[in-house]
C-alpha cells in the first residue's frame, strides 16, 4: 500500500466517532496526569490496560497513545506555572518557561508550548508516515557501544543546559549517575548502596526526586525571604492577550522547526527520547542565539524549542515499536503489552497485516494534537489564573500536591519522606550554586548508560577500544569531546586577546 492510500485509510479509521471519542478521552486524561506530578503516563497506561481488554484494539491504542502525548503537553503547564515538571521531559521547560511566568508572560509561554507541540506533532506525524520504515532501519544499527556513546554525548549536553560552572555541572552529573546505581545491579542482580533497607532495593524514583528537587525546593526558596510585589500578579486576563505576539512567533518559528526535526530524529532512538530531545534542543537554541545571556531569564526560544522537541520525540518513539517491534522506552513497552493482549505482534509485518491499526494510530496523533490545541488554548486564562493565588496559599497547596503525588506512586509514606529529603537537599543545592537539573537528567540516563557500557565491554572482550572501533560510536564520542573542550578552547583563544588589551 502506498503512503497516500495508507493515510486515506488512516483518516477513515481515526475520524470514526468511536475513535474520536477514545482519542479525546486519551488526551484529556493525558493532560490531567501530565499536570499532576507523580502519576506519570507509564503508571496511568498500566492502570488502564485492563479496561482495554474489552475495547477494539485500534481504539485502545489510540486512547493509550493519546495519554502519552497529552501528558507531554500537560507536564509543561506545571513546569511553566509553578516550576514543577510533571514529566522528566519538561525539566528543561522549567528554566525559561517559569522565568517567563514570573515576568507576566505565562500566557505566551503556555501558548507557544501548545502551538509548538501542535506543529511538532504535525511534523512528526508526516515524518512517521514518510520516513518511519526507512528511519527505523537506522535505529536498529544502534548496539550497546553506540548507546553508550549517545548517552555520553547527552550528558555533556546536560552540562551545557546548566547556567553555572561546567565543572560543577560535571560533579552533579557524576552524583546523578551514582544515584542511579542505588538498588539492584541490572546485570548481576546484587544489592548496591541499599544500606540494608528494603525501599532502596528498587532504587530511587525519578518522580519522587523531581518533585523534591523542584517542587518542595521551590516552596522552601519562596519561604526564605519576603517577596516583592510580584509580576506574577500582573498577568493579562483575556485569552487574546495571553496568546503569543507577532514578535514571539518570529522568535519561536525557527526553534519550533529545529526542535521538531531534532526531536523526531532523537525520538527514533531507544533511551531518553523526549527527555534527551528537550535538552538537546535547549542547548542548540542557546548556542545558535545571538544573545545567549537571555536564556535562563525568560527567553521564549528556550520554551518553544524544547517543547516542540519533546512532543516530536514522543511521537517518533512509535516508529521503532510499530515498524520493528522494539519499544524505545517504558511507555512504549507498556503499549506493546496492550497490542499483545489483543494478539497483535508489533513488527515489520504490522503494516501489511494490520494497515488499519498502523495508519489509524498515526492519523489519530494528528487529530489528537488538534484536540489538544482546541482544548487547551481556551483554558489558558484558567491556567494563568492559578498564578493569582497568593504565595502564602500557593506554597501550602504545592506541598499538599507533592505529598499526595509522592504517596500515590506506591501508597508509601517512605516515598513522601524521600521527597522531603530531596526537597531540602535541592534547596541547599541552590544556595551553594550546584544546579539540580544535571543531577536529575544524569540520574534518568544512568541505567541505560550502565547497561550499555557493561554490555559493550562484554562484547569487546573487556577492551574499551570497542567504543572507538564502531563508526557511529566514534562520531558521537568525538562530538562529545569537542563539546567538552569547547569552553576550554574558547578561553585559550580569548586569553591572548585579553592580554593584548591590558
Amino acid at each position, binding site marked *: 500500500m502506498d503512503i497516500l492510500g495508507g493515510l486515506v485509510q488512516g483518516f477513515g479509521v481515526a475520524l470514526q466517532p468511536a475513535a474520536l471519542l477514545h482519542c479525546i478521552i486519551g488526551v484529556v486524561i493525558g493532560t490531567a496526569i501530565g499536570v499532576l506530578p507523580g502519576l506519570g503516563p507509564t503508571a496511568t497506561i498500566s492502570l488502564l490496560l485492563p479496561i482495554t481488554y474489552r475495547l477494539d484494539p485500534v481504539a485502545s491504542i489510540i486512547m493509550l497513545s493519546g495519554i502519552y502525548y497529552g501528558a507531554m503537553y500537560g507536564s509543561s503547564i506545571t513546569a511553566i506555572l509553578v516550576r514543577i515538571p510533571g514529566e522528566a521531559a519538561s525539566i528543561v521547560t522549567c528554566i525559561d518557561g517559569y522565568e517567563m511566568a514570573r515576568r507576566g508572560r505565562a500566557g505566551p509561554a503556555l501558548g507557544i508550548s501548545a502551538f509548538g507541540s501542535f506543529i511538532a506533532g504535525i511534523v512528526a506525524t508526516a515524518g512517521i508516515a514518510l520516513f518511519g520504515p526507512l528511519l527505523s532501519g537506522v535505529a536498529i544499527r544502534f548496539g550497546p557501544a553506540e548507546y553508550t556513546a549517545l548517552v555520553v554525548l547527552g550528558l555533556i549536553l546536560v552540562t551545557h543546559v546548566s547556567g553555572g560552572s561546567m565543572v560543577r555541572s560535571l560533579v552533579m552529573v*557524576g*552524583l546523578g549517575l551514582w544515584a542511579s546505581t542505588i538498588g539492584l545491579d541490572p546485570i548481576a542482580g546484587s544489592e548496591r548502596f541499599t544500606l540494608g533497607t528494603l525501599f532502596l532495593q528498587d532504587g530511587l524514583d525519578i518522580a519522587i526526586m523531581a518533585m523534591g528537587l523542584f517542587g518542595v525546593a521551590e516552596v522552601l*526558596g519562596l519561604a526564605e525571604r519576603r517577596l516583592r510585589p510580584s509580576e506574577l500578579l500582573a498577568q493579562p486576563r483575556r485569552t487574546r492577550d495571553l496568546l503569543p505576539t507577532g514578535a514571539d512567533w518570529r522568535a519561536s518559528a525557527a526553534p519550533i522547526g529545529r526542535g521538531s526535526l531534532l526531536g523526531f530524529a532523537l525520538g527514533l532512538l531507544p533511551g531518553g527520547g523526549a527527555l534527551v530531545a528537550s535538552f538537546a534542543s535547549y542547548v542548540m537554541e542557546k548556542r545558535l542565539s545571538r544573545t545567549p545571556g537571555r536564556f535562563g531569564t525568560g527567553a521564549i526560544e528556550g520554551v518553544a524549542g524544547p517543547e516542540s522537541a519533546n512532543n516530536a520525540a514522543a511521537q517518533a518513539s512509535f516508529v521503532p515499536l510499530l515498524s520493528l517491534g522494539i519499544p524505545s522506552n517504558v511507555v512504549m513497552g507498556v503499549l506493546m503489552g496492550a497490542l499483545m493482549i489483543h494478539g497483535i505482534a508489533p513488527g515489520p509485518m504490522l503494516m501489511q497485516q494490520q494497515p488499519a491499526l498502523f495508519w489509524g494510530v498515526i492519523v489519530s496523533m494528528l487529530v489528537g494534537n488538534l484536540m489538544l490545541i482546541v482544548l487547551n488554548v481556551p483554558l489558558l486564562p484558567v491556567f494563568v489564573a492559578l498564578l493569582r493565588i497568593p504565595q502564602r*496559599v500557593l506554597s501550602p497547596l504545592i506541598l499538599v500536591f507533592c505529598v499526595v503525588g509522592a504517596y500515590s506512586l506506591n501508597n508509601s509514606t517512605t516515598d513522601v519522606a524521600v521527597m522531603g529529603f530531596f526537597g531540602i537537599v535541592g534547596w541547599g543545592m541552590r*544556595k551553594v*550554586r550546584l544546579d539540580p537539573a544535571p543531577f536529575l537528567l544524569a540520574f534518568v540516563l544512568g541505567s541505560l548508560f550502565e547497561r550499555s557500557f557493561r554490555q559493550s565491554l562484554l562484547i569487546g572482550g573487556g577492551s574499551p577500544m570497542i567504543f572507538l572501533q564502531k563508526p557511529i560510536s566514534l562520531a558521537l564520542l568525538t562530538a562529545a569531546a569537542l563539546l567538552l573542550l569547547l569552553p576550554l578552547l574558547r578561553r585559550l583563544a580569548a586569553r591572548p586577546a585579553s592580554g593584548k588589551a591590558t
Partner: protein
Amino acid sequence: MAEAAPARRVAAGDAAALVAILVLVALAGWRSLGYGVWSYGEPGPGLFPFLVCALAGICGVVALAATLAGDAPAAEIDPDAAQQEGPMMWGKLALYVGVIAAWPWLMAPLGFVLSTAAALFVVLRLAEGMAWGPAAAVLVGTVGASWLVFERILGVPLPHGLLGVG
C-alpha cells in the same frame, strides 16, 4: 585604564558542600570496590559506580580548588532571588522544613485528613501568619478538595488513621 578587579571572596557554604560531596563519593567509590570492579575478564557490579564516583571526585576537587581560590560562580542558582528582598526569615524556613520532615511520619498514625490539617495549620497560621478565618477556609478547602479528588475520584487509598477516613 584597567578597572580594579573586585576582591575575591571564598564562598564558605560552597566549599563545605563540595567537601561533603567529596566525602560521599570517596565512601561510595570505596564501597564500589567491595562490589567487585572486574572479575574473570568481565566488568563487575562495582565498575560503573566506581568510575562515576571518580568523575565526581576529580571534578569536585577542581571545583573546590576554584572555590577556595575565590573563583566560585557569582550568582546563586536561585530563581526566587530576584523577586525577594529583606533578610533571611530563618524561623519561617525552619517551620516549613519541620513540616516537610514530620508530615510523612504523621500520615500513617493520624491519617491523611488529620496530618494534612496539622501541616497546613502550622504553615498557614504559624509560618505565613495568616488570620484565623482565611487560614481555616484554605485548610478546609484544601483538605476537602484533595481528599475528594484523590481518595474518591482517582481511587488513591490514602491512609485512614485516627478518623477512619482517608
